[in-house]
């Protein structure tokens, strides 16, 4: 009991009894955030999810990064000393001029010079390991000695080789074999080596990779097949961050593996932060890397950034934060309540709390409710570089194909399914109806009348207006389905919608889709299935209509338009073209567009492609989701950047203000407790008296 009281006493003496953190009072620069599920992988060669990038984006430093403030998104050096120098080669390996045509270019060579003065975070992998200590440690911090060393070109090369390692399961290996010379050959060698020594660590330094060359200690070259300008974007992702061979060797020890101390869980990088607490079941903590190189807050941005205070820290050394604490928070309700109490610094807005946080103005603009404003919160919105769409399987005999009948059927459905209504009902207005695959912020996206899909909308009074159901029905007549019936057989047209709808809101959503089709007399049968069967259907092309989404890997139109490129068909090639759409004219324009620099010529090509897509309607374009973020007043330097994943180094918090507000907002309310005690007494006393009376009655009865 004494121990228990001892443990509770510090909290009761503190101002906030309900604080979920052990630290009280004015703290260092600490940011409080959360994660909803444990990350699966923190190995930069393997990790590919946004929830994983939240951590490793702050730890690993690939050669490039996105400028924090500038838009459109702009790459700049990070691990590299300057932007890579690209040289084009012909088939004979002879250099070509920079303006050489795509057909001439057989290879592109990217020469990258590593930043000087960058060092790894302190880590036991960089010092000799005592085998006795190895048996005793439970976590990395138990190692008595930690070391570091400077980044070398070899470390970047080592990581590229890791992409080919069969045990790494890098998700981009398949894609990169199409580009990086010799990557597949390296995979074959490594597979063979693993067969011979399955339990042995493979030192990748001993395995050559033709497409990667070490020039000197700080310079390396990557040889890519053909012209692939998007390769620079990949260089801004953790897949290409440096990995010291010592670290991989260190984590291969079985004594560490059985304690869950692996490279996949304990990242080692050169970035602004390092992972010091790694309990994916409870808490993850990033702390400032004492070896972090000189880095400064940007001095330029968009014109409005200065007035919003985003340039107040221009030129200041970063990171500002000393520590970032991520707590596991699986449910949205407790998360939201703790955010309102000031225990989280930022929050998204779930449907449950949307009305409490946001109200729409007369012009439809989202703004904070008075309660939120009174708490000094800030609302920031941004259109995500993603798309959620309804796709038609172009290999299907009824809805697919490029003949006039099927095309008009798809166009009619495109008009009938009212995505403005969908966004309003199911997304609290948080979305923009898509006019093409390209979201705002991606080159090629157009606004105004030029950007509108003329098959679905008219431009009236300066805004797009969805075409009428009569026009949709007329298209159905032209397609040979008057009143939703096949003109030849007279049978009603039934379409099949393959979905994985298992959530609580899905019934309403599916009913809504059914009603949209009923508006033009079409019958929609929902074929609800589990994720595995759905994947099978998509792979073998037996789905007819489906829902899908895509989140940009990088801000280039190629990363969206390739979703409709014929040779990427999912059914035959297992590619990302889930609709199995194939239009030779579109494919030809795609091949031309993908290697072009952003220019008016490229814009023209994209417009032609978009026109083809509007006409063929292989997708119902769906919508681009809009992100809403709420930030407390003390959380500074926040600007949505949908491409960068290393933005926490720019964040700053006013700890004194936060402590003060937390104290104001969380004073313990004790009177209900005393009320409860009184109530208990009111209940207990009569009961006790009752017992006494009954006992005495019994005695009296016995005496009498």
């Amino acid at each position, binding site marked *: 009991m004494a*121990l*228990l009281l*001892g443990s*509770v006493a510090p*909290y009761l003496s503190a101002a*906030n*009894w*309900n604080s*979920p953190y*052990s630290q009280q009072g004015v703290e260092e620069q600490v940011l409080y955030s959360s994660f909803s599920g444990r990350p*699966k*992988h923190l190995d930069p060669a393997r990790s*590919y*999810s946004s929830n994983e990038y939240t951590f490793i984006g702050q730890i690993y430093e690939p050669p490039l990064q996105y400028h924090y403030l500038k838009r459109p998104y702009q790459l700049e050096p990070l691990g590299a000393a300057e932007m890579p120098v690209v040289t084009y080669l012909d088939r004979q390996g002879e250099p070509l001029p920079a303006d050489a045509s795509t057909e001439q270019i057989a290879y592109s060579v990217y020469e990258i010079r590593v930043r000087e003065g960058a060092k790894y975070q302190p880590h036991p992998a960089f010092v000799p390991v005592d085998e006795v200590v190895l048996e005793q440690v439970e976590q990395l911090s138990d190692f008595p000695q930690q070391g570091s060393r400077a980044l070398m070109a070899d470390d970047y090369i080592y990581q590229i080789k890791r992409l080919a390692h*069969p045990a790494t*399961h890098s*998700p*981009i*290996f*398949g*894609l990169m074999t199409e580009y990086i010379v010799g990557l597949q050959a390296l995979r074959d060698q490594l597979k063979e080596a693993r067969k011979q020594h399955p339990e042995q660590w493979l030192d990748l330094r001993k395995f050559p990779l033709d497409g990667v060359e070490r020039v000197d200690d700080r310079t390396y070259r990557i040889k890519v097949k053909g012209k692939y300008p998007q390769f620079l974007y990949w260089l801004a992702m953790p897949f290409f961050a440096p990995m010291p061979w010592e670290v991989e060797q260190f984590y291969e020890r079985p004594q560490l*593996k*059985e*304690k*869950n101390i*692996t490279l*996949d*869980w304990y990242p080692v990088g050169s970035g602004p932060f390092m992972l010091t607490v790694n*309990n994916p*079941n*409870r808490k993850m903590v990033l702390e400032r890397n004492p070896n972090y190189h000189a880095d400064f807050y940007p001095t330029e941005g968009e014109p409005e950034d200065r007035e919003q205070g985003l340039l107040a820290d221009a030129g200041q050394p970063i990171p500002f934060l000393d520590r970032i604490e991520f*707590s*596991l*928070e*699986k*449910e949205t*309700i*407790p998360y939201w*309540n*703790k955010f309102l*109490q000031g*225990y989280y610094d930022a929050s998204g807005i779930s449907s449950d709390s949307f009305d409490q946080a946001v109200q729409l103005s007369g012009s439809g603009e989202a703004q904070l409710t008075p309660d939120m404003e009174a708490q000094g919160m800030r609302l920031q919105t941004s259109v995500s570089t993603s798309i959620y769409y309804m796709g038609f399987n172009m290999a299907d005999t009824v809805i697919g194909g490029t003949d006039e009948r099927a095309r008009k059927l798809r166009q009619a459905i495109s008009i009938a399914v009212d995505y403005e209504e969908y966004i309003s009902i199911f997304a609290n207005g948080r979305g923009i109806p898509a006019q093409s695959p390209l979201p705002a912020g991606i080159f090629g996206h157009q606004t105004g009348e030029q950007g509108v899909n003329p098959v679905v909308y008219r431009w009236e009074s300066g805004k797009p207006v969805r075409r009428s159901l009569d026009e949709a029905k007329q298209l159905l007549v032209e397609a040979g389905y008057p009143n939703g019936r096949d003109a030849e057989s007279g049978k009603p047209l039934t379409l099949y919608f393959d979905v994985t709808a298992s959530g609580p809101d899905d019934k309403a959503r599916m009913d809504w889709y059914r009603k949209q089709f009923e508006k033009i007399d079409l019958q929609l049968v929902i074929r609800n299935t589990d*994720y*595995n069967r759905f*994947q099978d259907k998509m792979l073998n092309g037996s789905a007819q209509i489906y829902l899908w989404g895509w989140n940009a890997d990088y801000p280039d139109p190629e990363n969206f338009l390739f979703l409709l490129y014929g040779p990427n068909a999912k059914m035959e090639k*297992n590619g*990302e073209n889930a609709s199995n759409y194939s239009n030779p004219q579109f494919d030809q324009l795609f091949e031309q567009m993908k290697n072009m620099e952003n220019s008016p010529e490229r814009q023209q090509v994209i417009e032609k492609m978009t026109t083809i897509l509007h006409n063929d309607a292989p997708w119902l374009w769906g919508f681009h989701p809009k992100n809403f973020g709420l930030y407390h007043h003390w959380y500074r330097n926040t600007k949505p950047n949908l491409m960068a994943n290393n933005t926490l180094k720019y964040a700053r918090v006013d700890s004194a203000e936060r402590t003060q507000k937390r104290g104001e907002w*969380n*004073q*313990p*309310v*004790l009177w*209900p*407790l005393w009320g409860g005690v009184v109530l208990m007494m009111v209940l207990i006393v009569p*009961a006790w008296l*009752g*017992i006494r009376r*009954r*006992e005495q009655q019994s005695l009296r009865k*016995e005496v009498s």
Partner: protein
Amino acid sequence: MLNYILRRILYAFPILVGVNLITFFLFFVVNTPDDMARMQLGMKHVTPEAVENWKQERGYDRPLFWDDTASGVGVVSETLLFIESTKLFRFDFGVADDGRDIGKDIRERMGPSLAIAVPTFIIGLMTNITFALLMVFFRASYLELSGVVLTVVLMSISGLFYIIGGQFVVGKLMHLVPISGYESGLGAFRFVVLPVAIGVISGIGSGVRWYRTIFLEEMGKDYVRTARAKGLSEGRVLFHHVLRNAMIPILTGAVVVLPLLFMGSLITESFFGIPGLGSYTIEAINAQDFAIVRAMVFLGAVLYIIGLLLTDLSYTLVDPRVRLS
């Protein structure tokens, strides 16, 4: 008694083999190794080679139940079922699909689950029995009627409501304890107070009614009349004689769940951010992580068997007439 225990342990083996077999069969009916690979490898850029590679690395390229290509006992011993099952019987749970050691994860997550489940169980049991005895004591009075109405009301409210309501009132309005979170060691106390209180209160309705039924049944028996005839007070009759004689049904319900307390509670842990075992299995099913699913099902079966054995043993402690043979 030792013979009895040994016999029960031997009986457990075929049960565990059966449980393991059914788990394998049901899991692979729903999820093929290809499905598992696709789930683990993510949505983007997944090639057939990547799927094959993943299966090979995890051993899922082996036949599941029968290996036609092997000879002799190899047709059985070279299968995924045999190889993985033999590890399970050695309590070697292996690694999850994300590479983490399952045994270590279970050991780590067991503590927080117990920190919630044990006090909830003990306090809940004592509270329920006490209230049930009081209701029996005040039987046929307005206090019993009010108690019955109250317990029915408490039973009718969803468990989720208690959690959200408790967090709202105690954590958000009164600011007395953290809404959610966890700390190890003694620091856990302030995080477990609210979930334990909610767990106890939400269980009062059904618990009190169940024990009241048991006690009322006992009250009609001859020994109660005899006790009263001997002049014992009603309180002594209830708390001394009736309670002791009602221990068999109480133990039947209580002891069997003791080992299962390790397994945690899904909803409570999820809402209170308790890093326990409650959500471990569900998360694994959603992620199609067969290694965790089979380990947790196996562990659940073992614990249930232990629970049943403990129940039988506990009968001998409370009722001298019971002999295990």
